[in-house]
């Protein structure tokens, strides 16, 4: 759309409801302005920027290993995904083949992280919905995943599992850990299926979520939405299918048709059994051998880029290597492209549902905060 034929925004707006940047309803600092007419949201605008820490600039000139460790601090929810993708970027440029076993351990960590992220989304979503019982049940299930992550990675949030050439020796999965992972998976599968049953049958939740915050397929394509939010509109797009790390695994891509809050919540609940399936396969077929290959050499290379599928969508990392140091780093997180979807989902709904419409896109503004301006398409 060019500048001339853009629709002119209404001059007089009846009411503006502004929230943020620190606000009770929002768990993260961001600012949202809702333009309201008769309690119906006519337009929404989300502004971020208070969390800007300049990670890409700090990365500039750091040794590659140190920069990889720093990328983990981009986000506290999908921290493993960031370090994984950053390491993959370096490995791609330096032509390193990681041992098969370490690749499996990375996938186990990645899928455990997807589990904890989806559980967090369900917990947070149900809390915003006003259903605290569901929220607490989900948080209780999530503890199982956190314990497993702590067992493998040594910490509950920042694990630092991947390094160039494999995974850290402390993340080795032995007999005892295998047993614990499998036990945890059984608990989770039972728990999430129970939850999904109750969620589907609850008439209160249904009335509160159905037809709210709808994003159509056309809008989703226009706004370049990624990840589960895109899959909830009916487009089966998952980068895991094309990633060579995942080629030995058998799993389904879940899609929903409506693109409203209900399908977004249910979509994540149904993706959890798929992740459990992947973890079970990985643990069962875990190859024997070393987990770390240190026989690689550093050399200069031009800008390298890497995409992976993280819990929220597609994550992009790119940098060049010069004398063992990082140059020109770019990180693009999935919530960046989902901000458009959050704004669109609010429009046409009741002002009380606006927060729910934003939460349904699984926002993570702390990791997104690296752009200067969001351009509305």
């Amino acid at each position: 759309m060019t500048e001339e034929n853009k629709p002119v925004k209404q001059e007089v707006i009846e009411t503006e409801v502004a929230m943020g940047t620190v606000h009770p309803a929002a768990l993260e600092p961001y600012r949202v302005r809702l333009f309201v007419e008769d309690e119906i949201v006519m337009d929404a605008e989300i502004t971020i920027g208070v969390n800007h820490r300049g990670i890409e600039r700090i990365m500039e000139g750091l040794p590659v290993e140190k920069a990889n460790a720093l990328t983990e601090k981009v986000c506290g929810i999908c921290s493993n995904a960031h370090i994984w993708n950053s390491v993959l970027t370096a490995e791609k440029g330096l032509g390193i083949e990681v041992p098969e076993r370490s690749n499996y351990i990375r996938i186990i960590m990645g899928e455990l992280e997807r589990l904890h992220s989806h559980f967090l989304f369900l917990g947070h979503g149900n809390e915003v919905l006003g259903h605290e019982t569901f929220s607490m049940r989900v948080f209780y299930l999530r503890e199982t995943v956190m314990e497993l992550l702590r067992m493998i990675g040594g910490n509950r949030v920042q694990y630092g599992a991947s390094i160039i050439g494999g995974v850290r020796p402390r993340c080795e999965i032995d007999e005892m850990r295998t047993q614990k992972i499998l036990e945890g998976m059984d608990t989770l599968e039972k728990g999430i299926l129970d939850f999904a049953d109750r969620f589907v049958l609850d008439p209160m939740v249904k009335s509160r979520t159905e037809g709210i915050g709808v994003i159509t397929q056309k809008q989703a394509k226009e706004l370049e939405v990624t990840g589960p939010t895109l899959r909830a509109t009916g487009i089966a797009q998952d980068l895991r299918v094309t990633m060579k790390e995942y080629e030995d695994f058998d799993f389904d891509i879940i899609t929903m048709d409506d693109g409203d809050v209900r399908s977004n919540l249910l979509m994540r609940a149904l993706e959890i059994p798929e992740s459990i399936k992947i973890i079970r396969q990985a643990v069962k077929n875990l190859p024997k051998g070393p987990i770390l290959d240190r026989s690689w050499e550093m050399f200069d290379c031009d800008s390298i880029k890497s995409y992976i599928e993280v819990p929220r969508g597609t994550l992009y990392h790119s940098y060049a290597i010069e004398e063992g140091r990082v140059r020109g780093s770019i990180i693009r997180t999935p919530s960046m492209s989902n901000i458009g979807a959050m704004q669109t989902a609010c429009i046409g709904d009741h002002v009380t549902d606006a927060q729910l419409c934003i939460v349904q896109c699984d926002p993570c503004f702390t990791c997104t905060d690296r752009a200067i301006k969001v351009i509305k398409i």
Partner: protein
Amino acid sequence: MSLKPFSRARAVHLMLVYTGGCNGCDIEIVNCVLSPKFDIEQYKVFLTWNPREADVLVVTGPVTKLNEKPLKEIYESIPNPKAVIAAGSCALMGGVYKNIHGDIPSEEIMGPVENIIPVDAKVPGCAVRPEDILSGVVATLPKLLEAD
């Protein structure tokens, strides 16, 4: 024990402020309130988002430039007696964001929290463990209970 400390000890309200961390500490703190496993509410500690209702302010993150003023305002609007807990390595010393490039001053990070508001208890960890938050809250209790 007089009535005031008796009732204060049974309604400690936490307020959580995010000042630009990575979200890890924040989720662990919310987890420590909401998750039935830790369940801080059984010790009569509640999470609130209203500064005028709060007793204990929990600050996470390295305090970015844009967050400095809101943090001060929130601190001032909490009624006395009040206590501040700085949670996580970012809040304690600026974390990786401030320190990874050595002595070069950072334009974006105004932290640690001590530079901006007085801190009563420090909870280390990256990210903080929910158990540590509990002990941090307990450590600030004497200040709340002994005040007039």
